[in-house]
């Protein structure tokens, strides 16, 4: 478990990092390294160049302005978890972060790294899709913005080009009274989930005014359940609605066949998890 040889550069500025990324055919960004370093040591990845961005100043900022929370590329999961401002602005993220691996991993792993990597079992991409976040990609040629809802194509497949780096994740702050919905099924706390739900609902005058729910981990990429949202919008929350929506979730998901569970089993688990997290969110809304 020794990685193959690679060149290593400790970048001192974002421009330098982006230039090297552009000049190399086969470079990777090292931020938290919680996925990359393991992949290197297992020789699953053998890049020519590793560009370490950990020493670039200013990349670890969390900023709330104009109703948007901006997360820089060196913000660690633990740092985001500790931010009261982020927790207020993004209750879903606050609820999901404790499910991201274990403290030691959260201390190093970055939120943007997780978003860029696109592991189907990861919580952060699902939250970004649910909350309609914007991902800012930079290259030597400039920056572009991609909605998280367009970013994930499949298993570890994203719209990021090889010469681009995710330099910011921008989340719309939750409206007053928004309720987070989060639940996942993992064998042990902190394990990769086998299935999960991440979302947010918002009541206006007692009726559901906004509803975004994403299924993840059981499919190649986060799955925004738009059909379920249509059923929810305008409805008054009650136990019956929670049950109906949970059933709709179970029907809308498209779990991959796996040696661990048939799709029928996954749907049953989804129904139960959905009903529980919907009821939680609705009871909070009732209060």
């Amino acid at each position, binding site marked *: *478990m*020794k990685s*193959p040889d690679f060149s290593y550069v400790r970048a001192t500025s974002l421009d330098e990092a982006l230039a090297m990324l552009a000049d190399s055919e086969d470079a990777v960004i090292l931020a938290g390294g919680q996925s990359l370093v393991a992949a290197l040591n*297992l020789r699953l990845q053998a890049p020519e160049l590793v560009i370490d961005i950990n020493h670039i100043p200013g990349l670890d900022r969390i900023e709330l302005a104009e109703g948007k929370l901006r997360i820089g590329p060196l913000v660690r999961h633990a740092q985001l978890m500790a931010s009261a401002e982020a927790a207020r602005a993004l209750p879903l993220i606050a609820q999901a972060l404790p499910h991201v691996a274990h403290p030691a991993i959260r201390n190093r792993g970055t939120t943007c790294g997780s978003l860029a990597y696109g592991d189907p079992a990861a919580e952060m991409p699902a939250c970004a899709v649910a909350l309609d976040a914007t991902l800012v990609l930079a290259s030597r040629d400039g920056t572009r913005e991609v909605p998280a809802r367009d970013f994930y194509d499949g298993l570890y497949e994203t719209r990021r080009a090889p010469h681009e780096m995710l330099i910011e994740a921008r989340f719309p702050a939750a409206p007053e009274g928004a309720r987070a919905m989060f639940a996942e099924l993992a064998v*042990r706390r902190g*394990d990769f989930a086998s299935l999960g739900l991440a979302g947010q609902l918002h009541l206006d005058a007692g009726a559901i005014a906004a509803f975004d729910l994403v299924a993840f981990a059981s499919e190649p990429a986060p799955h925004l359940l738009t059909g379920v949202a249509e059923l929810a919008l305008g409805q008054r929350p009650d136990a019956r609605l929670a049950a109906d929506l949970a059933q709709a979730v179970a029907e809308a998901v498209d779990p991959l066949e796996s040696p661990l*569970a048939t799709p029928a089993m996954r749907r*049953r688990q989804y*129904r*139960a998890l959905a009903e529980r997290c919907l009821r939680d969110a609705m009871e909070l809304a009732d209060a």
Partner: protein
Amino acid sequence: MTELANSGIGAPLPREGARRLAEGRGRYVDDITLPGLLHIAFVRAPFAHGRLLGIETDDALEVPGVVAVIDGRRLAEICAPFDTNPPGVPGHASAPQPPLVVDESCFQGEAVAAVVAESRAAAEDGAELVFLDWDELPAVCSIEDAQAEDAAPVHTRFSDNLSLRHRFGAEDVSEAFHGAAHVVEADFSFGRQTGVTLEPRGIVAHWDPRTEELEVWQSHQVPWQMREVYARQLGLSPQSVRVTAPDVGGAFGLKLHAYADELAAVAVSRLLGRPVKYIVDRLESFTADAHAREARASCRMAVDAEGHILGIDAVVDAGFGAYAMHPRGSFGEAMQAAQMIGAPYRVGAFRAEVRGWRQNKAPSGAYRGVGQPIACAITEEMIDLASRAADIDPAEMRRINYRRTLDEGTRATQAGLVVEELSLDACLDKLLEAMDYTALRSEQAALRAKGIYRGIGLASFVELTGVGAGLYGPLGLTVAANEACRLTLQPDGSLTCATSVTDQGQGTLSAIAQLIAGEFGIAPEGVRMVAGDTGRTPYGGGAWASRGMALGGEAAKRACARLRDGLLELAAGILQCEPEALRFEQGEIIGPKGASGLDLAELAALCHYRPYDSPTGQVPPMTVEESFVPAALPYIASNGVHAVHLEVDPELGTVDLLGYWVVDDCGTVVNPLLVDEQLRGGIVQGIGAALYEECLYSEDGQFTNGTLADYVVPMAGEMPDIFVEHVSTPTRATGLGARGVGEAGTVGGLGAVRTALGDALVPTGARVSQQPFTPGRVLAAIMAAEDAE
């Protein structure tokens, strides 16, 4: 008396040495370096079964730092293959296993070539450039496939895959079942596991061509065994081999074996005349460490209307993997899995047949509990099924069937077990009280009405501990099964204990020091322990079968008695009294008139520096050695009862552990802190077997979950509080009275989770036969039961 209790037997002393290890100051094999040290990375077989046609090494040899690439043919010139067919096990058949594949490989991950380089990284770079030319052969992986009439052979030297067949008990038990009030029957499937030590296996081998001596440092449980294995395989005198086990980070049985890759590392050093290091990486650990537990079983039990067990009839099919592990074979788990069925109970008629099957998978070997967890799980679930059939409370069902001891005039049970007096009734009483069994049962009933499925499971066990020569000798296994203590009184009055017992994190050495200190009434810091080094310790076993205190403690106690007797006789001469009137207290000799002014330091100084001051002109030996092996018994049986409280989520299939209780009888408890943590650690591994751990192979024999993200071990967050209590019945086989405890947690843990899960699922009509009980398997069983309605 109180001072003695604070430092000697029974004192909950913190473990000496724990701080050093916790602070990272341990010295493990990988911390050892020697001038000119080379590193090995192995090229391993990519297929489950194949014929090696050729090895291309030119590109690898060009990698900077690579010194040599050595294949199986080259090693075969200087090193014999393992031949693991103990003469005392009739019909046992295992193919010879060379250190590196010569022409046929039988499991994915078998070592094929050793790339030797200046660094491990360079060796791995080289290994990537070794090209192997193969003919892939048909692979047989599951037990069912291995059993099939037309199964391809796992090794082409055999025509079928049956490696062992044996029967315990009667040939025919049908009469016991005929006319029984209730007959219950069930199938079982136990997943393949591996030990997952925190520190992986590792070895440094140094053949010194000048002295023609081989020195080996190895992360291992039994250095004396390894000394003999290396000498035998390489044609050396055991006297020219020294094996040292430095600090070892967990072993659990998997470091009891001799491994082909480690033998290859030793042979490479012999070939090159240079020191070499090989540290197993985590992926290699999963594919090439000994596996364990894979078994399928079916069992029938007959009971009368009052619940008495009239008969047990069982068949166990065990998955052995490609080779028998050297030198003790792979049959132990299968044999104990069958023989120990029903062990805690009086059983009218008994029959258990066991068959061991070769498979194109990693060899199976010892893992904490060795077969006994399987036997316990089968027995306990059968008891539950019978108690439901007879409508008797499961706790009561156990009580009325418990074996107290062997019946008058019998030497062994029908299964051939030799057990001393047991204390299962007393353990069960304490357990039911501790868990408040009656209250839990009422709560369970109330919650079931609300659709909440909680289960209460019990598992009683009898365990064979401190296994000695009485078992290994007749099998024809040449392994030392005694444990020895060489005790020295140093000139400054401190004591040195060199013991054959080894410690992989249990704290056994600390407990032996405590025992010795107690014998002289001194602080444990006054006893220096030396262990794990054939150059410095007396000949003996090491660590397996829960023997450290049961056998090694007894040897130490006997050595203390001899040293003390000599010193007291000397003191009696000086003090002009009878030795019987003297005793040690806080290192000082107390006589009829109180403190004598003589202490260990004074006596030591006299013996070492002024022997002429002895009234007789003689001084007792300052070093004594005692070796102990149970002579009257093949092993020392212990017993206990476990209980689990859990909740099943019928929609998710998840299992939450709510509570765990164990009452164990390991006889005399030397250090309750260490004993309790041995039980807890063992229980956690039992829970791992029940809920999480499984080595998953694809149909064509590829290991599919070889990382710790995929092979799931229990972690603290999911573990319940574990309540530990004791009943103490000192064994009569020794003066110390300690029985083994290292495996007791694992032996009962699996069965207790199994019975609790079965109990929780009663309202659903579902039963999960296959272990581990993953959410998928639990949910599938529930959904199948719903469909059947």
